[in-house]
């Protein structure tokens, strides 16, 4: 029962905040336009946070997602320009998008291989690749962005009144949620995070599964990178600086444990939305971005503290 309460906690806080904001700012907050805007803004972070959730459940961490976002976008946009000229159109955009996503996959795969084959800690490996990926992004165009003025579809396109990026986000939520809950790979992710040695002794191919998980995250970062590029119609080498911290915060607020073995997609989505709604609400209420930092920081600590407390209570109830 208390497990249920624990999962309900972030969702409850989100609902509460939405209610408060609706009451305070009914004319600006509670409009379709604003809500869709929140979702659109959440989609990039949310897609990456889904990948991060699987990594954190496996007791790992990926600090390189922000740099990976920049590199995927840069390579994608570079390919568009290389093929289609200074204002690429049509097929060059599609090829560039695909290439950007492939770069994400390669980056994630590299992380996975380094972590498993060299038996290094994920924190160290991704701290390194964070720097490497960022460096390559800067080197590519001497620190300058690539502009792709016609690459608007992913960022601004709307189908049946819903932004494309939100649709992609929803599809990824569904697929990842299903995989984590019902696939063998998902099950093994929890097992590895809960007790890696035991999972190995139970016949789990730990290395291969970890490589899958990091590669999967790379794929999601690649997709998110192309949405972000499209939204600003340019690829910035500075994109996603400190993004990893926002992402980890969302996952942790959603109830995942950095010690591994615990976390859900629904929790992570709630965590992501919680941060987005707070940001949006603060802006509507005229609270400066600087103060927003303070609020979000406190929320992270509060969420984890409450979660910890709930856990200790469960422990005590279950004692011999």
């Amino acid at each position, binding site marked *: 029962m208390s497990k249920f309460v624990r999962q309900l906690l972030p969702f409850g806080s989100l609902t509460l905040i939405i209610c408060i904001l609706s009451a305070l700012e009914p004319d600006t907050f509670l409009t379709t336009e604003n809500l869709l805007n929140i979702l659109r803004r959440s989609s990039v972070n949310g897609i990456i946070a889904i990948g991060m959730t699987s990594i954190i459940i496996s007791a790992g961490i990926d600090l390189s997602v922000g740099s990976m976002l920049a590199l995927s976008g840069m390579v994608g946009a570079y390919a568009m320009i290389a093929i289609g000229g200074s204002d690429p159109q049509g097929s060059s955009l599609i090829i560039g998008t695909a290439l950007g996503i492939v770069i994400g996959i390669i980056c994630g795969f590299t992380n996975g291989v380094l972590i498993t084959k060299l038996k290094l800690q994920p924190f160290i490996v991704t701290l390194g690749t964070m720097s490497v990926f960022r460096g390559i992004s800067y080197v590519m165009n001497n620190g300058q962005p690539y502009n792709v003025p016609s690459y608007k579809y992913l960022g601004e396109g709307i189908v049946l009144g819903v932004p494309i990026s939100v649709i992609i986000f929803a599809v990824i939520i569904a697929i990842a949620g299903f995989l984590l809950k019902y696939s063998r790979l998902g099950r093994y992710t929890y097992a590895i995070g*809960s*007790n890696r*040695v*035991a999972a190995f002794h*139970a*016949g789990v*191919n730990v290395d291969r599964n970890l490589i899958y998980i990091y590669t999967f995250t790379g794929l999601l970062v690649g997709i998110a990178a192309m949405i972000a590029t499209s939204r600003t119609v340019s690829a910035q080498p500075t994109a996603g600086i400190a993004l990893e911290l926002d992402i980890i915060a969302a996952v942790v607020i959603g109830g995942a444990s950095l010690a591994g073995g615990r976390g859900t997609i629904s929790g992570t989505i709630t965590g992501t939305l919680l941060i987005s709604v707070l940001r949006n609400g603060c802006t509507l209420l005229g609270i400066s971005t600087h103060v927003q930092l303070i609020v979000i920081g406190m929320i992270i600590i509060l969420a984890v503290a409450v979660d910890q407390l709930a856990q200790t209570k469960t422990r*005590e109830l279950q004692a011999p």
Partner: protein
Amino acid sequence: MTTSAQSNRSGTHIALRMTGISKSFGPVQALSDVSFTVRAGTVHALVGENGAGKSTLVKILAGVYQPDKGSTEIHEKPYTFDRPDQALAVGVSMIYQDLDLAEHLTVAENVFLGNEPKGRLPFTVDYKAMVKRTAELAKSFSFDIDPAAVVSQLPTGDCQVAAIIKALARRASIIIMDEPTSSLSETEVERLFEVVRQLREKGISVIYISHRLEEIIGLADDVTVLRDGRVVHSESVTKLDIAQIVRYMVGRELTEFFPARDVKPGDVLVRVDNLSSDSRIKEVSFNLAAGEIVGMAGLVGAGRTEVARAIFGVDKKASGSIVLDNKELSINSPADAISNGIALLTEDRKRTGLCLGLACSWNVTIASLGLLGMKRIINPARENKIAADIGEQLSIKWLGPQAAVDSLSGGNQQKLLIARWLLAKSKFMIFDEPTRGIDVGAKKEVYSLLNRLAEEGKAILFISSELPELFGITDRILVMRRGRLVGNLKTSETTQEEVMHLAAVETD
């Protein structure tokens, strides 16, 4: 008055008196109206099956839990503890099974952890004084240990001693030891007993929790038996024997402790040939027939677990072959071993066996998802049903397949792991110390399970440090010494003395 040591200690000074202690966790009544008295300068054994309430009782004493009812007096003064440090302050020290030592620090640093003597400069520690005082403390109890040694470099027996010295440095007058011998070798056990006797000589009371009843007979002065959260008996050890204690523990006579074995071993099913690995085993060869239970004896460090690990693909093989069902297997990982029909129940169920935070059902099916028709996609309803069925078959006591593993008692956790390998349809099953740390009733169930598996035609390799159980259940006994197989004996034609001799004595 006689002059024997035991009657000298039968003084009237009471070190600890707990009266009317009750404690419940949610709906579970862990202790009801327990009264527990320990005389000063005695070793008091606390026994009972898993879940009988031993841990809860000592954790209340150590201030980890607070009782719902009841009072605690230490040296005739009443106390209530809200936190462990309050118990420590009045001389109650608990030495946990996993010892709670900082591995990378020295013995002396551990002894004075959180209580370091100050150095001459501010914020510094007087390391020399620390080593000196640890050495003095060790000497006054005639313990032999190097205060400057790093804990991770020490054998487990020395770590125990370090933990005891740490307790003594805090002026403990009551020391609680929870299963202190479960990971010690024979010689280390002897040494620990000597240490405990030293403590007793100096007037310290030791509360000693153990499943090994022989130890209690040899060491303790008094014994208190708990069953289902109540004290069922408390008396001087000299007036009891093992059979009586067991009877109090389980509340019934265990006449047929070991199941009757009437399986006729069939054809040779497993052939291990010339097996060597980097981790200490050399040229080990043996066969197992279908339906045969083969024991493996040896001292701690003799290489028994390493044989299992090499067969199961955990350790790299340097040489050797494994033939199962006339087919030579190529095994490079546990996954290979499992898909070829080999199971390994590891000796450390918490570290290498269970995913403690996850559901019981997940732990049960993890090794056989493919076999159960859930190679890619899991059907939770079906999985739940499978787990519930096998749980019922093995009479696992749980709140249901969805319960978290850490809510189960040790014996039930062990059954959960056995269930895992039953589902994996293994033909060759290796059980490494399957009865370690589980209670008498659960042990008996494990034995009859092994017997049943043999009846089904499986080959079973049973590694154990307890000779009585090897003699109770096996057809043959293999003896390991220093990484080599030194004996392959028919159980009916050998004796415990012969096995012990082979395991312990150099012949060349």
